[in-house]
Structure formats: structure tokens, C-alpha cells
């Protein structure tokens, strides 16, 4: 699989990454070479193999639905780029 300029732009948009125009050819080349490496997987027949998600075949633990966290809003918001009255600020979303 070889990626072109359009592919890279599309993927960068999906990943919400601003990529400079001049860097696109470099990314297209390196991403294509990584995909080439990855495609060695295609040589193997895996039709009857089940996918493995966790080494110990563990299942998701459940717990009682109780409050375990205390409110630390002010503490957490101290490191935020921009807050006001306990709210995180971003550029206006709705006109």
C-alpha cells in the first residue's frame, strides 16, 4: 500500500493533526514504508484464528456503582490552559 498526498491529508484530518504542506511528501513516504512492513502479515492465513486482546484472556472486572472519587475540580483545573468559573474555555462552537 502506497499513500499519496490526499491520503496523508485525509488521515491527518481524521487524527486532528495539522501537518505543514512541505512535510506531506515525507510523511507519505515514511507511512508507505511502514505499511509495506506491516503487509508482511498478509502472507499468513489467519481465517481460523481468533484475535487476542489480552495476554491472560482476562475479562473486564466489574465493581459496585458507588462514588469513589472526591470532587477535585479546582485542583485539576489549575493546569488547564484556560478556565472561567470552573469551566474549560474553548473557541466558540455555536453561533
Amino acid at each position, binding site marked *: 500500500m502506497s499513500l499519496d498526498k490526499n491520503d496523508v491529508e485525509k488521515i491527518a484530518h*481524521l487524527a486532528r*493533526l495539522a501537518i*505543514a504542506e512541505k512535510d506531506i511528501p515525507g510523511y507519505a513516504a515514511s507511512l508507505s514504508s*511502514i505499511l509495506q512492513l506491516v503487509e508482511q502479515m498478509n502472507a499468513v492465513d489467519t481465517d481460523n484464528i481468533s484475535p*487476542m486482546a489480552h*495476554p491472560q484472556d482476562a475479562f473486564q472486572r466489574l465493581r459496585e456503582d458507588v462514588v469513589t472519587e472526591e470532587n477535585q475540580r479546582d*485542583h485539576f483545573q489549575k493546569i488547564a*490552559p484556560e478556565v472561567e468559573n470552573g469551566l474549560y474555555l474553548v*473557541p466558540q*462552537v455555536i453561533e
Partner: protein
Amino acid sequence: MHSKTIAELAAGLKKGDFSSEELTRSFLQRIQQFDPELNSFITVSEEHALTQAKAADAVIAKGNATALTGIPLAQKDIFCTNGIKTTCGSKMLDNFIAPYDSTVIRNFNQAGSVMMGKTNMDEFAMGSSNETSFYGGVKNPWDILTVPGGSSGGSAAAVAARLVPASTGTDTGGSIRQPAALCGITGLKPTYGRVSRYGMIAFASSLDQAGTFTQTAEDSALMLNVMAGFDEKDSTSVDKAVPDYTADLNKNLKGLKIGLPKEYFGEGLNADVAKVVEEAIAEYKKMGAEIIEISLPNSHLSVPAYYVIAPAECSSNLSRFDGVRFGYRCDDPKDLEDLYKRSRGEGFGDEVKRRIMIGAYALSAGYYDAYYLKAQKIRHLISDDFKQAFEKVDVIMGPTSPEVAFKAGEKSGDPVSMYLSDIYTIATNLAGLPGMSVPCGFSNNLPVGLQIIGNYFDESRLLNVAHQYQQTTDWHVRIPDAYK
């Protein structure tokens, strides 16, 4: 003092030969002296360390010391530390002061150890040379023109130069074992789920595991005793009793069955490295171990499968860095999408962006089956190879890395050639098995690591096997001349 192991330092502290404060000051001085060149630390937390050292001295005076009380340690800058900057080697987190401690840090604090600072690393642990760090590369103390390996390069270099007696790291595809090998020290990556990942900044959640860099296997056991254990805050941590990892260190290796995978000694392995590793295995034979040739027939698929799974999981994990709640935010965003895109585009480095894009591509509509699902199936094949092997053998051995430390800049322009430096370590992560790297000799005056892979939760045996080798050889006590 600086060449002593944790076990020796703990004995000295107990006897009153020196205080933790004296010890801490002496290592801080070494950091000041040598680290401007090595660049193994991102943050040196001098004040915090001295406060912890004084507290440790009080505990020791009362006779309540544990094995790690008062011992100076360095922590990889991937573990969140309350009140002390945690960057993960990225511009994205250059201003990030975590509001809480990771479980690993909390465990070390409870044990009374002293945190000297946070070590340099590849950005978000993505790299095998430490060259992707926003804070610059780390130099290998054995030859400053070469890399220390990665991603935990700072932690490895700091121990190799004896700027600290031991440190922590994380290993997603080899990030503890490969730098341990390249820096000539002992590295341990435990079984997936053995050590809590809570507060350890996530790269690939189904592969990441925290572990140790030490001078000796005995010290690894002491560190693991503190780190291992179930944690409710990590849903993948395994609820299984933690043994005393020092208990089996002195067991005799007579009759130990060592498997040598023929795939780990084939094409791509440097001939000198192969020779050194074979000599180490001969040493085990002398100790009474039985050597058995085995096959891990799908090992050649581990790098391809890894470079789908790890990027896919990273693209998902790193979506939390959006410039809204913490971390880097671009100047003057014109709308929300611009804020996301430029904060991420400017905050992440090249390699991280590459992996996020590979992951986003592999997970995008229409490609899931061909990439992520396929890779998870191959992961099963690789894991089954190990299962079969461990029916015949107790441990598996081979080289940790196909070559010794390479020159800075040699591979940084070619991601795929960089990825192949983890060719012998990645399969262990895919299977979730524990692995170690132990210094076993030199090639061109640079250290070579012997990799020892164990069965699930068999860390005690791994440590025993490594410790016995360190009783009859002295590779692990070698220190590069400039740091003696």
C-alpha cells in the same frame, strides 16, 4: 559509594555507615557533574529528594526501614508525580504538573525511597534510541557518540553511569530490555498486568508494562517487590499474590531447561553479538543447565503485527491530548477544530505523529479487518508459539538486540530500520510474557545483552536464572571508564 548496589547501600544505611541524606547528596553531585553531557534527566528534583532522604533517615533511625528506604532512584518521566513535572519527553506535556501520583510512584514513596528526578525518554515512549525526545537525545555512557537505546534511554544511561543505583522504565516493545542491553545493565520487564499502569502515561495499553533498571538481578527483585501487585485503579492489573522475588535467587540451576529459538540466531544478527551470547549460554551449560533448540515459527511476524497494534492503540490513547484540559495549547485558535489540529500538530513530534497517523489509518472505516483484526490474530499465533515452547523449556534465551549501540543519527531518518532494532523483544510484549536483559560481554567495547524470557508470572525464576549468572561472571559490575 556510587558503584554499590541497592542491597549493599541498604546494608550501609542500616549499619549507619552513611545516611540517606549523605547518599542522596553524593548522587546529586554525580548528576550535576555528569548529566550536562549525558542528558539522562529531564527534571532533577533536588529539594524533593533531600526532603525524602531526611524522612527516610528518621524511619531508619527508628528501625523501620524496608529494603528500599533511603535509596536514591530515578523515575522514567512517564510516571505521573504529584507536584513535579511529568513530560513524557514531549512538548505536549512540557508544562504538565500531574495532580496525582501514579501507583508505581506511590509504592516507592511508601517504601521510603528517594526520587532524584525524572529521566529522559523517547517522546511518549515511541522510539528505540531516545532521539525522539523533545528534550534532546541521551548519550550512551560507554561511547557518547552512540545512543543508549530507547525508549527508556535516560533511565538506562543514568544507571550505567552510576548517577543513580537504579531506575524505573516501561517496556511496550523492548523499551526496558533494549536500552539495558545497549547500556550494559540489568533490565526487567515483568508479565503484563503484574505492575499497575495507573498514572503511567499510556502508549499501547495492551502492551505497556513498567519495570526496572538495576546493576544486578538481586536489585531487580528488591525493586519488583515494591512495584508488583494488584491495583483496583488499573482494570488490566492482575489479582495474583506477589511472592518475595528474592526468595529463589540462590536456587541451583542444575537441570534448568533453556530453549534457544533458532529464529533468534539467524539472519540479521550481528556475528560478534551472536558469539558473545553463545558464550553466555555455554556458561549456563557449565552450571548444569540443559540447552534445547526450539522454534518460534511466527516470530518474523511480530514486528509487522506490533506496528499495527501499538500505533492503533496509541492513536486512541493520544486523542486525549487536545489542548483543552491540560498540556500544550496553540496560540490564537480560530475555532475548535483549529485548536485541536494545531495544538496536536505543534505539540507532538514527528515520530509520534507518524504513529498516530498509522493507527488512525489502520482503524479507519474499511481497514479494520485488514490491519487491526489481522494483527490481533497474528498476536494469537505468536503467543501460541511461546505456549508450546514453554511446555518443553523453563526459560528462553537469545540476544536482546541484534547489534550493540548504534551511532546517533544512524537510523533516525529511517523509521523501519529503527523498528527492526526491537526484532527480538517485541514478541514478548505481544504475548505478555516477562523478559530480562542481562549484560553478558562486549563487542567493539560496547555492551551486549542476553535476553531471558520466562513464562507468565515466572519472574522469580527469571531473576534466579539471571542472579546465578551474575554469581559466576562480572559483566554486570563493569562501569565505563569516565564514570568509575
